[in-house]
């Protein structure tokens, strides 16, 4: 049965944030955020705590009044509407289920506010509970449900009134790892089934990469980058984006007169950059390479032409289960990490001299941080 037709939920609408600001006295929580979620899109706001992502979500929901800027839903301004008139579903971090009501009564709550009839409420509540796989727990109180089940009730409650936009505030933060991965798939499935627009807040980069159509990376109240998961992971536009998402190696480099070639600071070793790279203004820049894009080989072996190489000594080999991490000291101030998938380990061991190689296309040149960067290995 096509549950989207069955539940009669219309598909999502576009959400637009324009120059959104939120100040608390002198403290700027959110600064000129421009963001658009397309109808039916799964958009994730990703960032560390205090980066402004939750404040942004609360402004969309109406719990926080923006200092300036505009919020539009389906082309209409909603800034002036109180939260209870916005018709936006929201799943809270700690579920916020009403403890004195059963799962059924919790899910029925939004329908009662909309003056639905008893029979209709019954059908729709049971459908929503069925959709999240909790049809048999309708008469349990929240305290009788596990964390994962409470989360499902919260989700059912937020979608049962057919909102065109669903906000989720770190909904999986309180769950253990296995359950979290399972719920990620469940939320994804429900997103596809309902076709409504999702705005999802998390600080978990893995969650963001696996679930989202697009990711907006927040830092210090601003958006650093917006793009698809592979956009932001493979082509980070700022050092923060590169380091916050996954692990990364950064190398301070200096410009040279030759285009497409930079020199590693302090080593005078040239590195090739992707062909279309523009050297940023200023003296220094940083080259970022993902650990899984690096290859470690015993020193002195012939390497394929056109690749970059740095020689160093293996300091540490860390076993990670599905992979291992080889930490290499290139110089006292340059450390690189190489990630090798299980079954593809190189023969190098701790103490070996190694050549670290990578394809020029796998490096990304970024503007230097304001402070002179001390080059480090994996974050």
């Amino acid at each position, binding site marked *: 049965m096509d549950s989207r037709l069955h539940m009669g939920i219309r598909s999502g609408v576009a959400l637009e944030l324009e120059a959104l600001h939120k100040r608390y006295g002198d403290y700027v929580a959110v600064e000129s955020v421009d963001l658009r979620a397309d109808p039916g899109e799964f958009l994730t706001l990703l960032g560390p705590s205090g980066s402004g992502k939750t404040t942004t979500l609360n402004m969309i929901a*109406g719990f926080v009044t923006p200092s300036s800027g505009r919020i539009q839903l389906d082309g209409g301004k909603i800034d002036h509407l109180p*939260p*209870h008139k916005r018709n936006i*579903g929201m799943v*809270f971090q700690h579920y916020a289920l*009403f403890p004195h009501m059963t799962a059924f009564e919790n899910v029925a709550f939004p329908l009662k*506010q909309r003056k639905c009839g008893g029979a209709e409420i019954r059908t729709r509540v049971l459908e929503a509970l069925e959709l999240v796989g909790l049809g048999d727990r309708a008469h349990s109180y929240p*305290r009788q449900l596990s964390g994962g089940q409470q989360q499902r009730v919260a989700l059912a409650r937020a979608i049962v009134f057919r909102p065109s936009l669903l906000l989720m505030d770190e909904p999986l933060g309180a769950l253990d790892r296995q359950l979290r991965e399972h719920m990620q798939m469940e939320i994804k499935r429900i997103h596809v089934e309902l076709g409504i627009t999702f705005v999802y807040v998390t600080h978990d980069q893995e969650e963001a990469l696996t679930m989202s159509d697009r990711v907006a990376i927040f830092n210090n109240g601003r958006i650093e980058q917006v793009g698809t998961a592979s956009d932001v992971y493979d082509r980070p536009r700022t050092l923060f984006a590169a380091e916050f998402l996954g692990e990364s190696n950064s190398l301070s480099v200096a410009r040279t007169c030759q285009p497409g070639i930079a020199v590693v600071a302090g080593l005078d070793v040239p590195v090739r950059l992707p062909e279309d790279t523009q050297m940023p203004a200023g003296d220094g820049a940083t080259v970022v390479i993902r650990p899984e894009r690096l290859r470690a080989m015993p020193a002195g072996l012939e390497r394929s032409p056109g690749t970059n190489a740095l020689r160093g000594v293996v300091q540490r080999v860390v076993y990670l289960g599905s992979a291992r991490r080889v930490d290499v000291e290139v110089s006292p101030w340059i450390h690189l990490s190489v990630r090798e998938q299980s079954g593809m380990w190189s023969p190098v061991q701790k103490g070996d001299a190694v050549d670290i190689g990578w394809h020029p296309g796998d490096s990304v040149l970024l503007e230097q941080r304001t402070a002179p960067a001390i080059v480090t290995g994996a974050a």
Partner: protein
Amino acid sequence: MTVAWSARIPVMRRVRPGRVALIAFVVLVTVWLLLPTLAVIPLSFAGAPTFRFPPTSWSTEWYANLVHDGRWIRAFVTSLIVASLSAIVATVLGTAAALGMRGRFIGRQVMFVLLLAPMVVPVVIFAVAVYAVFLPWGLTGTLPGFVAAHCVLGIPFVFVTVAAGLEGMDPRLTDAAASLGASPIKAFRVITLPLIAPSMLTGALFAFMASFDETVVSIFLVTPARRTLPVTMYESMTREIDPTVAAAATVIFMGTTLLLIIGVLVQARRRTSHG
């Protein structure tokens, strides 16, 4: 053998001397606190009009006296009305104060001290002040006067219990209700109120008690036409030697014990249903 030994060890631990001493001490303190109060019970059944303890003969004369003497009945009814109204007013105001004191704002600390002040200020001082203000307004000896003075004494109890109840409530519940379409008033009525109702009830009980056994302020406010039970008891003690007051005390003692047990049960039920 091994099984028998391992099974006995916890039993031996449970009866170690420190614990025995602790239990003995608790019993002693309980007796110390309760015994003087309990002494009025045999006194109320005394056969002679004296306060001799223990009584040498027995009767229920004083209970009959209590029921037939209109003075006692009137005082009891007055106290009941004053205490009920004070509890209601204190519960409304104390709950409103607890709701208003959530979050941070300038002057919160000052407000906090002011709200708890009636618990700290010596009652005599409060009584003199109330008398001085109420006399020119013609409030002494009136029902509104009693309720206004007594509810002030009850507010801190309600404020403290309801504030504790709100503390235990997820602050995002009202946000959740709003996101689901409930107006602020609706959210308060359907979500907040049911969740803090047990705290309000407990606070109301305390406020009722605070008014019901209030003596000092009442002594200043009474008129011959309207006196409360504690004042009547006090006057009975000072003007006549008559164990009727012991009978009244016993009735009140039983009543208040019952109320406190209800209060404890309500608290316990709340703990099991939200714990």
